């Protein structure tokens, strides 16, 4: 069966510090991968999605970036965090050629202070 791992679960970082969140998927090949951000009490904002290694589409201009160095690995990064980067970050995957049911990781709660 397929599983998605996301870490860390919580993170407290000072403003201006770098960020690296990692997500890996097991039990499937060639998945679509997604990064979402959810502000407190708000909806799901798509940040990045990837249909293959090295292929990243950005949905929102910001100081975040994403990379996909391996087929089942998706990394969210920032060189300098802003206060507004605080939120709940969710990684998700879906089957490449299908009806795009998305399965979410447990999420990372990021607090930028």
């Amino acid at each position: 069966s397929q599983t998605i791992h996301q870490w860390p679960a919580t993170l407290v970082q000072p403003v201006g510090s770098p960020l690296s969140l990692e997500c890996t998927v097991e039990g499937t090949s060639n998945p679509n991968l997604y990064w979402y951000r959810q502000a407190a009490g708000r909806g799901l904002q798509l940040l990045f999605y990837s249909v293959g290694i090295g292929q990243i589409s950005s949905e929102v201009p910001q100081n975040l970036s994403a990379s996909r160095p391996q087929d089942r690995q998706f990394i969210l990064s920032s060189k300098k965090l802003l206060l507004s980067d605080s939120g709940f970050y969710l990684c998700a995957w879906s089957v490449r050629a299908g009806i795009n049911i998305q399965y979410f990781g447990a999420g990372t709660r990021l607090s930028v202070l």
Partner: protein
Amino acid sequence: QQPVQSPQAVILREGEDAVINCSSSKALYSVHWYRQKHGEAPVFLMILLKGGEQKGHDKISASFNEKKQQSSLYLTASQLSYSGTYFCGTLPTQGGSEKLVFGKGTKLTVNP
């Protein structure tokens, strides 16, 4: 284009029914429903594909009217465990690279 969900919030007593609606201004291929409990990740509930089918999952069912570009989620005889925020996600076409667009969510609270 982001689908519109209504109502934004609903409060029920255990055993009562609720309907959550999801509307789009674009033609849809599929509608996906997810539930997110507080502090947790969204969990997939069900998918409705073009064709107007209705699906059920225990006491939670959904319908999809492709002509009206609307879907409704029906929660019957609600249980405390139904509490959470419900999101609909829509796809305009079939295909693996299309992005699912989520509504803003409907917060459901079930009280004893």
